[in-house]
């Protein structure tokens, strides 16, 4: 790890010195140090490290508080938690927060090197997921619409659409969890949704709730189908879907901060349906 810049956050001068020695022995450079949450952000901003090691147990603000503050400052910060405690729930909390690594004390060079390499390495599975997800979700939407409405539907990808867009009227948001987590956002106008209900039930929707329920079900089927298709391509994805949330009303801005969406439109007999899909690396916690 020649030249990898590491910043150490630890209240103990002895621990910082010891860790600095070990980092030096594996070719890393100690770019900065902080002894508390108060000095951490300033040190991080000035030294711009590749990785930050944070001690879990510190007086005042603990490692989780420091990690939250750092991720708030820079959501892309790569944090490796160092602790004498190592249990499942601490690991789960670290994963949920977006911490990249978790090492138990006493720290040795070999473990640091292995965890740092994994944290810095491009994740082949993640890249594969990012490359294929938009096409598969689009195909799942087109297939589902074709089957439900008995009329052909085609999906036209638009590539990367950024982190936000304006809703056409009804938005369903479905979280996805697995080796990497993500979000599927499906968006359509009220008129398109009502036309789909008409095609399916051969009558107009009785009330807005019926239309919303149809969109929720459609979103659920599309997300479930797409995740099954991706899991069949590579079972290591291990994708599952969260329950859907539905949003409707006056033009809403929909944003997925920190996660680029890729997507496109399905052209259907009922109107066009937008579909956006984004994944973020993790929650992977290297130990």
């Amino acid at each position, binding site marked *: 790890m020649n030249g990898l810049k590491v910043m150490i956050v630890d209240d103990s001068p002895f621990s910082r010195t010891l860790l600095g020695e070990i980092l030096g022995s594996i070719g890393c450079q100690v770019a900065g140090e902080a002894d508390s949450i108060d000095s951490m952000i300033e040190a991080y901003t000035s030294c711009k490290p590749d990785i930050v090691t944070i001690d879990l147990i510190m007086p005042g603000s603990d490692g989780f508080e420091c990690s939250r503050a750092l991720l708030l400052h820079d*959501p892309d910060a790569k944090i490796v938690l160092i602790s004498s405690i190592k249990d499942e729930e601490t690991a789960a909390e670290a994963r949920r927060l977006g911490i990249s690594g978790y090492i138990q004390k006493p720290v040795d060079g070999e473990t640091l090197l292995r965890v740092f390499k994994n944290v810095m390495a491009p994740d082949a599975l993640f890249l594969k997921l990012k490359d294929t997800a938009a096409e598969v979700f689009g195909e799942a939407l087109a297939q589902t619409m074709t089957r439900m409405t008995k009329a052909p539907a085609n999906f036209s990808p638009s590539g990367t659409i950024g982190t936000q867009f304006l809703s056409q009227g009804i938005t369903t948001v479905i*979280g996805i*969890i697995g080796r990497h987590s993500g979000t599927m956002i499906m968006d359509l106008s009220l008129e398109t949704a009502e036309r789909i209900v008409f095609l399916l039930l051969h009558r107009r929707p009785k009330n807005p709730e019926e239309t919303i329920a149809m969109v929720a079900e459609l979103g659920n089927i599309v997300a479930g189908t797409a995740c099954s298709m991706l899991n069949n391509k590579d079972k290591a994805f291990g994708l599952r879907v969260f329950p859907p949330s539905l949003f409707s*009303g006056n033009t809403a801005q929909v*944003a*997925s*901060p920190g996660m680029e969406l890729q997507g496109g439109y399905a052209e259907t007999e009922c109107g066009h349906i937008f579909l956006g899909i984004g994944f973020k690396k993790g929650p992977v916690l290297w130990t």
Partner: protein
Amino acid sequence: MDVKIINPILAAFSEILPQIGFCSVRKKGVSLVESCVAYEGVLVNIALLGSIKGVVLIGMSMDSAKQVVSKMMMGMEVPTLDSLAQSALSEMGNMVVANSCMQFNKIGIEGLDISPPTVLISESGTATLPVKKAIKLSFSVDDIDVNVYVGLE
């Protein structure tokens, strides 16, 4: 829905907000609401999956959202809810809900996963949670009104 399910959310809210720039967190009220809730302003949507599942929505008016982001950014002026402000709101949501999973773990509800946050901004909208009934928690954080809708079962 068992009302006890809100305790981990209350605990997380009270534990995390003081860590990100707020001095006081006051619970104003708890009420049972329909799964369909009207909102004006901002909603942060985070889903949970595990032995319980559903959604937590954190809602506030546009002005409240700007004040919340300003507090999180040490008093910086926040004239619009731009991508930086949206990122701050989603991080706040992520931290509260991630911490609530730890609180759930303490009462034996283990192995929960959370979805990435999605932020919705609208002058007038409706959110439908994937449950029959939801619980609305009203907070005042440094005199800013924040509502949390818990739809878990």
